[in-house]
């Protein structure tokens, strides 16, 4: 079959599953457990298919792999976890349908691994149904999980993206490394969250006394990145901070390099495998998720085995953010005990402290006021032509969540 030819070993069982999703619009997966007894019930709405799903679909697989692993080892408190997975394609209408459906299914916990346009119905549903809602994978933490001034009792975040600290980190890093004489450029996609990221960074640079020489928001389906690259070069930009889909990083960087640009581009996407393919020494990736393959994370082997068991289509190192979501869900359900109602689970989650096993820089430590974490941690990686491999430029650096 076609999938056999892939180096990343696409799995036909997953492809068949996704075929069912394409036809029906949902991806129903009931993960039946080696454990016996009445199950804990967890629902998930994720961005599994559609344009840009590559940023989120691996998280869903990572989460599923973890849950399957837990069930194979006897479940939680002797009870299996039954997982219901729905595909929302990052579309608000589908997100609303999924929120309704997951509410009807009366889960102990609903998890969400998608884009922010799908959040509103999920948050409303959590409020109405009293079922805790947890954001996982590469979903961005909503404000309702943050101490502003107090987190919503039903909303939790174990995902890798915290917009405020993420932006603060990349600006601080650029200020530290780009000499004062170097002109700064900002690159975003023409979508609200990406534009917000660029606008916020611009304000932060200006507060630090640095002017932004050029700020561009490019449409998602850009035919040619040459003109955008020319704008940066004409403005004399020597450092670009990018906040948006990774495809435009590649497009702008390649176009700029072909026009003779020698500057540095800092992006905030945790795409370890992409860095290996692009091989540009001055492309820096800031990430809240460890590059597990580069650092030879001991847990990667387990992820690989678990991924194989569910027929994962993505590489093991792409599943880590979703895997952490699984770690947190297991800890939450363990803390809740059995029997466990959604209200009891939300209460148990309010004081949870979970070791992310080195996949994130620090623990997921929830308090009644803060359902994200006390600090966000970041690393920076780049390709080294000298060493012929990815190297870590900066080890875990903490940004407090205020």
């Amino acid at each position, binding site marked *: 079959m076609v999938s056999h030819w892939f*180096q990343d070993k696409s799995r036909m069982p997953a492809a068949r599953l996704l075929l069912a999703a*394409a036809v029906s619009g949902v991806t129903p997966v009931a993960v039946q457990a080696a454990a016996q007894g009445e199950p804990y019930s967890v629902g998930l709405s994720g961005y599994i298919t559609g344009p840009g799903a590559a940023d989120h679909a691996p998280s869903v697989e990572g989460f599923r792999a973890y849950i399957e692993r837990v069930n194979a080892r006897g479940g939680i408190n002797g009870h299996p976890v039954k997982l219901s997975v729905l595909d929302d394609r990052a579309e608000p209408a589908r997100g609303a349908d999924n929120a309704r459906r997951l509410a009807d299914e009366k889960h102990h916990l609903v998890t969400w691994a998608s884009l922010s346009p799908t959040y509103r119905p999920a948050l409303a549903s959590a409020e109405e149904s009293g079922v805790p809602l947890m954001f996982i994978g590469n979903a961005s933490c909503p404000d309702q999980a943050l101490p502003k001034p107090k987190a919503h009792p039903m909303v939790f975040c174990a995902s890798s993206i915290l917009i405020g600290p993420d932006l603060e980190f990349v600006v601080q890093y650029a200020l530290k490394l780009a000499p004062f004489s170097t002109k700064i450029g900002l690159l975003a996609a023409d979508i609200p969250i990406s534009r917000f990221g660029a606008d916020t960074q611009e304000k932060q640079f200006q507060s630090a006394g640095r002017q932004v020489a050029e700020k561009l928001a490019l449409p998602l389906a850009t035919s040619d990145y040459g*003109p955008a690259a020319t704008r940066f070069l004409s403005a004399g930009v020597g450092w670009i901070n990018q906040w948006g889909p990774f495809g435009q990083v590649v497009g702008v960087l390649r176009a700029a390099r072909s026009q003779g640009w020698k500057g540095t581009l800092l992006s905030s996407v945790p795409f370890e495998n*992409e860095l290996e393919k692009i091989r540009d020494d001055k492309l820096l990736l800031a990430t809240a998720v460890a590059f597990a393959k580069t650092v030879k994370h001991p847990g990667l082997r387990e992820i690989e085995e678990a991924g194989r068991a569910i027929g994962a289509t993505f590489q093991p190192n792409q599943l880590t953010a979703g895997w952490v979501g699984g770690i947190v869900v297991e800890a939450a359900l363990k803390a809740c005990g059995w029997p466990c109602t959604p209200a009891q689970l939300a209460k148990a989650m309010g004081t949870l402290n979970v070791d992310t096993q080195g996949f994130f820089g620090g623990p997921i430590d929830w308090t009644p006021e803060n359902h994200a974490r006390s600090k966000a941690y970041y690393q920076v990686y780049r390709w080294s032509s000298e060493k012929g491999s990815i190297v870590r430029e900066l080890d875990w650096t903490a940004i407090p969540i205020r």
Partner: protein
Amino acid sequence: MQTVANVVLLGSLYLLLATGFVLIYRGSRVMNLAYGDTMALGAYVILLVAMASHVNWTLAVLLALVIGVLIGAAMYWLFVRPVQDHPVYVPILVTIALGILIRTCISLVFTSQNRYLDEVLQIPKYSVSLAHLQINFIDAALVGTALAYLLVVALGLRRTSFGIRMEAVAENADLAALRGISPAGVLAPVWGIAMIGAVLAGFFIGVRTTVSPDIWLIGLKGLTPALVGGLSSFRGLVPGCLLVAATEVLTIQYIDPVLGEVAPFLVMLAVLWVRPWGLAGKPEQIARV
């Protein structure tokens, strides 16, 4: 100078796409709205061939072109031929449905991960300096290939018996059939030849940026310069593509990148308002449509 280079490069990409659109329309009088998706499919075919066969990159592209021709011919034979005698909107709707089918299959099989054709194909990276410009091998190849494709297609149709048969079928399929020309036998290869443009465009997009299921949107943008130049005219393709590319590049560079998406359509509306048949199309053909 860089601005001129940007216009020429984008214009060349559009030329590859627009030539395919015009070829299909000129031959079968069908506006193929699946063309963008076939471009994406073409890029993935190259990826598959390269990963399966580990041959030199030029051979991989050639093999992919052959497969692309077969896919294009099959598309016509299986999906378009049965509805070609129906009202004009029916084949268009079929191509829309076909595009959605191709797009979905690509997402299912390949997922939405970005793929890097240049890394898989191991294409050499070298460039030359010319008048303060850095010209890399791939960009030069894009321009040369687009012009060569147009010339081969346009001259081939004008100077070969196959081209004459194609024009006959396009003019009046029933009459052509009475004269012993099989419309399906002519149009299937036409769609196959048009697929060459799609595969080549997919190749250049893949090596200059990435291959992902989303690139079908870029492929569909090739329709705009085809309409500007005249959907039934090869002569209008170069001016049409350059005009659209120049508008887009200048808008991106001097106004706003987001408006760069809109500008080509404004040009299209302006041209069609003045000349509904495009810069080089023929009025009597519009009456037929």
